[in-house]
């Protein structure tokens, strides 16, 4: 990707320093459940989860340039790992949380060793096929509850720490912490460390990166394992919050689709992209189900959105905000497209 290496967080938003913006955002987010009711807390919780998931996809898809069309599988793996630990072994949630990340990391490593030898479309297909296979597997295994799904314990003592009642705000703060941690990790690892430069180098030209002495295989594998483990953590919290998980829900292809469109719409390979995209797409989903009644109308909307973004603004909303894509670009794009319709 040809975007400048300066990230949006370090560019100035007018004259307001970035740290102030971040601070205000964090304070607002922390105060949100106290100011608003349970309904809005749930909405906020969902938005935070999707921002985090989109950010985790952004690591492998945006920064490393490997389109992982099976990333949703790790969300499901995290959910089922937590469920299995809590139901089958009767351990508290915190144990499940840790195990989820560990299991996902191990599976991701085993998958990464062969799969990351593939590039481009082949990688996309292989991961996509893998996710479908995981879903089939979950539907046929006993430990995941098979086609019956899995119900998680809801007792107050099942958390592992004395947190009292399991309220929506508790899960909100859990998700908030996880989401902020994910953003912070992304920022530090991909924008502020040498490792991040290696990742971007291999994305822009893998052969050139290799020739500069970067062990691209190793770097890709590390990025993949990191991003998958994070997705699993979100799956873990989601499972405990929702209390009933089924392979058709937590391993559905739409989960990956949403991560892809959120990162893409916001802007691939940027910190702010998945945040903006996550909020926009999540709100679109909520609003469409509230105002249009049917939740499936959201699917064609997402499809059209993906197509429009790819056609006219491949660097997403962040690209537009940064001025990389302005009105003339879009107009030129549309003109070139019209020329290609000269078919007869």
């Amino acid at each position, binding site marked *: *990707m040809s975007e400048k290496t300066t990230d949006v967080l370090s560019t100035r938003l007018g004259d307001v320093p970035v740290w102030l913006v971040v601070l205000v955002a964090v304070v607002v987010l922390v105060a949100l459940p106290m100011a608003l009711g349970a309904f809005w807390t749930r909405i906020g919780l969902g938005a935070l989860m999707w921002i985090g998931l989109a950010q985790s996809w952004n690591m492998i898809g945006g920064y490393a340039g490997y389109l992982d069309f099976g990333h949703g599988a790790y969300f499901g793996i995290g959910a089922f790992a937590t469920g299995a630990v809590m139901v089958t072994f009767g351990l508290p949630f915190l144990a499940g949380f840790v195990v989820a990340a560990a299991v996902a990391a191990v599976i991701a490593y085993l998958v990464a060793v062969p799969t990351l*030898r593939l590039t481009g479309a082949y990688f996309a297909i*292989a991961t996509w096929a893998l996710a*479908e296979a995981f879903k089939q597997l979950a539907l046929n295994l006993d430990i995941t509850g098979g086609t019956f799904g899995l119900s998680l314990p809801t007792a107050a003592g099942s958390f592992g720490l004395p947190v009292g009642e399991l309220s929506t705000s508790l899960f909100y703060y859990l998700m908030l912490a996880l989401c902020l941690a994910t953003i912070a990790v992304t920022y530090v690892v991909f924008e502020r460390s040498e490792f991040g430069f290696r990742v971007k180098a291999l994305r822009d030209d893998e052969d050139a990166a290799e020739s500069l002495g970067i062990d691209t295989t190793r770097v890709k594998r590390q990025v993949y394992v990191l991003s998958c483990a994070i997705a699993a953590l979100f799956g873990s919290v989601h499972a405990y919050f929702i209390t009933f998980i089924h392979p058709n829900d937590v391993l559905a292809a739409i989960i990956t689709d949403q991560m892809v469109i959120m990162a893409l719409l916001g802007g691939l390979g940027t910190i702010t992209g998945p945040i903006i995209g996550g909020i926009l797409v999540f709100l679109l989903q909520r609003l469409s189900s509230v105002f249009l009644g049917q939740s499936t109308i959201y*699917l*064609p909307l997402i499809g*059209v959105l993906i197509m429009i973004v790819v056609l006219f603004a491949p660097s997403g909303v962040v690209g537009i905000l940064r001025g990389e894509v302005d009105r003339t670009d879009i107009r030129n794009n549309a003109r070139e497209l019209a020329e290609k319709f000269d078919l007869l």
Partner: protein
Amino acid sequence: MVETGLLIQTIVNGLLLGGIYVTVGVGFSLAFGVLEVVDFAVGEYVMLGAILGGLAAPLLGSEGVFVIPFVLVGFFVLGFFVQPLIHHVTTGDRPQPLLMGLVFTFGLATFFRGTVLTVLGPNNRDVPSSLLQGSLTVPSVGIFPYVRAATAVFGVVALAAFMYYLYNTKGGMAIRAIAEDRTNARLMGIKINRYQSIAYGSYAALTAAAGVFIGMVFTANPGMGLQYTAFAFFMVVLAGMGYLPGVILSGIVLGLTQSLTAVYASSQVVLLVLFALIYVVLLVSPAGILGKGEWAS
């Protein structure tokens, strides 16, 4: 001990199914060759064909076969006008154009699936066919249901016609030239927009027509597309990207695998077995089992 009669019948069923999968695989492989895009929407064309078969057949005297000509024309036109969009995405000044093409068709597939789900709901639909009722019994070999036989015949005929066009006409030569090298083809005066559109349109038409037959053999469902996308991937991965003759072999392998797994294990694990096979092939020989495909990137 495996019963011989059942085994032979299962193999026959598999071969008959393979005929129709070959049609899907060849179109998909050609779309990759010409447009250099891995089309995530391939299974959705199958689904749209099957659903339209289910919707239109009752209007045409409960006869799914009569829907085919309409589907062929309709989807040719649709594909003809979708192609410029894909071409625009994969060329021009944008980062990682090929991956963007993949994402674009991913969006297209979601759009098709979501639209059908929203408009028609998630129910199964039958594609009736009164002409193709019944079956032919061949002693000591097994039963050939007419629907499956007709499906296989359609597959072979469509494939032959397509191959004839590609290898014996000027337009086919133009398409092969574009698949070989787009820039040079353009320099030779080939109208690449038109011929790419013809190629993509033919692919969409064939795939949707195959979908009508698949709907007759099984049933039509808005969610069925994903499976056929997986099948198409499976075939080209096995055959090697862009290597058309290999698709014939891999379509038959696919039909046999599906049929044998469904009978001797369970239809639930068919996808799992296929994914395991894809996986092994991709890792051991990324240029296909015959080793003649391109390494896509």
